[in-house]
């Protein structure tokens, strides 16, 4: 008796939605085992991870606060991933976006511009900068055929170093005793708070708006459709005259713009200035969110909340259970592994082959 994989005549819709759930449950199970192995009460760990972080209004606000950049970036990345354009450099594009938006904030914040004018200017600058940083791998791919995974990734390191140079040097706060940080942004350059006494800001609204826009683009716009076709069948797309170059540009720029916007949200939100590190790895976590969310805008929102909870949970586990913070990264990777494994159920059916030959 052997377990065989039999191709399904058509992809199973049930499996498409069940796979992420299966993956989540499997990750949970692994978590239980890991915690027990480390001598921690798994129920206490479960509580620290999933309940404690959202047990207060501040916690719930933090959940949405952390989910905003994730859903924003993942939405942009998903547009590209659908067309097999693999933007892995969102972290660098986020950094450039924060840089540009921050630059505008620092340059014009003092000049009494109203927030209604300054904030949009910051976001536009951030989106453009993110797109610029994504345009480099796009250009290298379309012009030189260079693999965009590697080029976009290398640029992440370059972006981080660029930010570091700026906050250590030209953009350093002159009143800051030469510490690597920019001036704090003026009040008119900060995102308004949505929920009093928390840190939840209007960045969430922006993220949701982008998600809605992306959904429209993918579902309703001809170009969005063509990109999906290109991802599913490059041959068919080519035959239909769909330009792969255009898809590469669109895919990369969409991701870059969204990452840039997320960067400005962080700078004008919980951070409030430019620091040598503007993101705890959102650009990479968003890749997982995009996959767990099946590249679908609505599911991405849910996936981003789950990922956000994983972050907060890891931190809470550190505070309350003395577990190392690396446990978060471990779970992120595990979740993605299980998802990819569970994905097989979409296109294949597990069958137990009997000893007798098949007819």
């Amino acid at each position, binding site marked *: 008796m052997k377990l065989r994989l039999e191709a399904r005549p058509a992809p199973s819709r049930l499996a498409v939605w069940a796979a992420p759930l299966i993956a989540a449950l499997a990750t949970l199970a692994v978590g239980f085992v890991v915690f027990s192995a480390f001598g921690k009460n798994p129920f206490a760990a479960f509580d620290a991870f999933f309940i404690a972080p959202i047990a207060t209004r501040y916690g719930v606000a933090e959940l949405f606060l952390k989910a905003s950049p994730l859903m924003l970036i993942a939405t942009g990345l998903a547009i590209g991933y659908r067309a097999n354009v693999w933007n892995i450099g969102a972290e660098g594009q986020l950094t450039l976006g924060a840089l540009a938006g921050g630059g505008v904030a620092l340059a014009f914040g003092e000049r009494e511009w109203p927030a209604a004018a300054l904030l949009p200017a910051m976001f536009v600058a951030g989106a453009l900068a993110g797109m610029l940083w994504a345009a480099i791998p796009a250009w290298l791919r379309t012009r030189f055929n*260079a693999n965009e*995974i590697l080029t976009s990734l290398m640029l992440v390191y370059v972006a981080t170093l660029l930010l570091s140079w700026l906050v250590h040097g030209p953009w350093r706060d002159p009143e800051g005793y030469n510490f690597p940080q920019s001036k704090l942004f003026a009040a008119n350059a900060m995102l308004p708070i949505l929920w009093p006494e928390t840190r939840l800001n209007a960045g969430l609204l922006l993220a949701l708006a982008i998600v809605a826009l992306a959904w429209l683009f993918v579902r309703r716009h001809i170009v969005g459709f063509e990109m999906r076709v290109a991802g599913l069948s490059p041959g068919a797309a080519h035959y239909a005259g769909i330009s792969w170059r255009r898809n590469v540009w669109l895919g990369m720029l969409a991701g870059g713009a969204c990452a840039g916007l997320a960067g400005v949200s962080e700078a004008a939100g919980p951070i409030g200035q430019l620091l040598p590190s503007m993101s705890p790895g959102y650009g*990479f976590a968003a890749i*997982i969110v995009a996959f767990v969310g099946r590249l679908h805008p609505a599911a991405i929102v849910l996936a981003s909340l789950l990922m956000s909870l994983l972050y907060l949970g890891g931190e809470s586990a550190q505070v309350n259970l003395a577990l190392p913070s*690396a446990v*978060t990264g471990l*779970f992120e990777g595990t979740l993605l592994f299980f998802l990819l494994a569970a994905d097989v159920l979409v296109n294949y059916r597990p069958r137990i082959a009997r000893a007798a030959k098949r007819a």
Partner: protein
Amino acid sequence: MDTFTQIVVLSLAAGTPLVFAALGELVVEKAGVLNLGVEGLMLVGAVASFIVAAKTGAPWLGVFVGALAAALLSLIFGVIVLTLRANQVATGLALSLFGIGLSAFVGRPYMSVVIEGIKPFAVPVLSDVPVAGKLLFAHNPLVYLSIALFVAVHVFLHRTRSGLVLRAVGESPQSARAIGYPVIAIRYAAVMFGGACAGLGGAFLAVAYTPSWVEGMTAGRGWIALALVVFATWKPWRVMIGAYLFGSVTLAQFQAQAAGAAVPSELLAMLPYLATVIVLAIISRDATAIRLNAPASLGKAYHPE
């Protein structure tokens, strides 16, 4: 040792983790599989080797276990990609993230532990030869091992029948299957070999280069190794050149600083990454050369039915 010799020795050492990882990945890609998880595999190899070296006091045992651990981890990748036929890019990414997280998690208690690492070894007699002696015969044993690996990989791929079979699998798995070769099994073997090599690269870092464990200590070398394979158009000798060039670029920024150059250190630190991007562009530009040298089925899922 004079300055020049010291720099050369340092550059070779700096390039060695790249040699290990890139040679391994080259074999994997020659078999038609793209494994983006090299960074995670290197870190797992590093942490495993360090822990074993710390607990047993035997760094060579650590190196062996490091390679083994990474090979086992790459097995998970193999199952998901080769048996469950998942997307190779996404799975490789997942492997990297998982490896980074797992190594950080497991290695926490070992962050400031000190071990007796594997030190450079001066070959008796030969290393006393003037000029060439210190240049060629006073390296870390793992550096010599990496060179031996290069020879082995080159001979295997281009001079043995099994190497030919592996390359055939990478070019056209359907044809190889038609002749009767077990494509999936060969790919599994390649993936695990690649994993073991990445593990060796990580182990070198943790047990010889800077005997220590720090989370994320590979600092992007796994990704650079991936780029190197493309840069080398899948030829082992070019991998060696690329790896040592990279090693020296990384060191060059410290050289420049120590010599008093006034360029901001961050801009100098960008050099290896910018160099990778530029080199990738130049190499990839010749699409024909890429097509001729890249295994034809690289990255594509293989469906036996």
